């Protein structure tokens, strides 16, 4: 689990977009999973994107689909039949605490609930890498903590690499991991921030 921080406008989102292949470099080289993305054709991008789960600050759920269908979306894109994944998706929604909101549409979900659906959607294909862009930016602090616990569990249980961009310093402090800091076009690795105030053991 790695955090990416930096002042607003430093280019965190752009860097992440390059990483999750929403943007391709106009100059220079971006290598993902050892592949130079600027050399890939449109067709070759899709398999690479499937190895990355993305969580957005603004959730980006499809409004006309239920929570269950939103989580199942990547599996549908892969052409899997509903019978093969149904139980897994329900299990996953239970894990994020939405076992009773399977049929709810995004309009009826709170911000925190939406983000948990989005997390479940990013995880459902068991990607090699999960990228989250300000995942706690639109939820309150308590929900932020809850989401963070989900990330940590994800990191430990599935052994998935997480790259989280945030300027929520409280979140970074709790993680106690190294932080990548982006400023003036340079990414610098800084050691885990030392906690000023003692943290109660979880």
């Amino acid at each position, binding site marked *: 689990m790695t955090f990416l921080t930096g002042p607003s406008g430093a280019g965190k989102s752009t860097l992440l977009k390059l990483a999750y292949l*929403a943007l391709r470099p106009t100059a220079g080289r971006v290598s993902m999973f050892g592949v130079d993305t600027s050399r890939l054709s449109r067709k070759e991008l899709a398999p690479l994107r499937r190895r990355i789960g993305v969580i957005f600050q603004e959730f*980006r759920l*499809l409004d006309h689909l239920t929570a269950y269908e939103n989580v199942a*979306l990547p599996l*549908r*894109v892969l052409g899997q039949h*509903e019978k093969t994944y149904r139980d897994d998706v329900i299990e996953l929604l239970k894990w994020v605490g939405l076992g009773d909101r399977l049929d709810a549409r995004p309009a009826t979900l709170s911000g925190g609930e939406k983000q948990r659906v989005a997390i479940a959607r990013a995880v459902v294909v068991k990607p090699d890498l999960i990228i989250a862009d300000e995942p706690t930016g639109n939820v309150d602090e308590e929900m932020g903590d809850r989401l963070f616990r989900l990330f940590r569990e994800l990191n430990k249980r599935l052994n998935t690499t997480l790259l989280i961009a945030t300027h929520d310093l409280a979140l970074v402090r709790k993680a106690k991991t190294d932080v990548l800091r982006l400023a003036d076009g340079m990414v610098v690795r800084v050691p885990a921030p030392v906690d000023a105030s003692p943290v109660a053991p979880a």
Partner: protein
Amino acid sequence: MKPSLSPLLPKEDAREAALFFVVCALCFLAALSGLVARSAYSAADEWTDRVTGQITIRVRGDDAATARAVAIVKATPDIISARALERAESEELLRPWLGAAVPADLPLPHLIAAEASPSAAKAGGAGQRLSAALKAASIDATVDDHIVWSKDVKRATDSAGLVALVAVGLLGATGLAVIAFATHATLLARRDMVELLHLTGAKDTFISGLFERRFLMLGVQAGALGALLAFGAAAFILFVVKQADQQVWLLPQLSLSLADGLILGVSPLVAGIASMLAAKVTVMRSLSDMV
């Protein structure tokens, strides 16, 4: 849990109703033009078949000359039959122009109705041979084998067919343009969704498939309704014509034959497939501009 998954492409009822109407109307017009063109062709064919081989000879002279002419015509090779028309029959021919009472003292031409054998009718030239034979016997007569008429009719129906074909072509092109436009609008309206699908790892063909299926169904359904309405309109015209019991020459003599059924049956399929292809081309072209 719901038994089935919602479609990935959300239904947009207002826009789709308008599109449905347009495709339906286009298909109706196209099917109707097809029907009209086909019936014009078959009516012309029927008429030409009827007159082919029929020869009318007008004799300028007395009854004796006419009787001689009949004998000469009968003796000519390839002529199956020949007979002089009675005065009553000639009057009957004039009735549409002169009314019921043709003056008794009106001089009428002496007419001979002859029929060439089908093989000779096909080969042509029977008229000229008759003309020559009558001239040789110094009978003043004019031979008309209706070939000039047949050619006129054929030219008229050919141009009617061409007009119908152009109309169908234009309607088809309009349909394609409308579908392409609607696809583009949907694509722009759902850009967020398309982007999300891309980031989820969807290939262009997957996204295009969503639109293709949607527009295939719309095209087939709207086309079927349009064809059904065209069938209704044709049946109505047929009914009205039959009621009037008029001799409707050449033009819309709709008969609703097998060929008509084919036109009606095929047009929804064509509408569906054309809609699908228009959607596919539009989506693939738009997607190649996106990341």
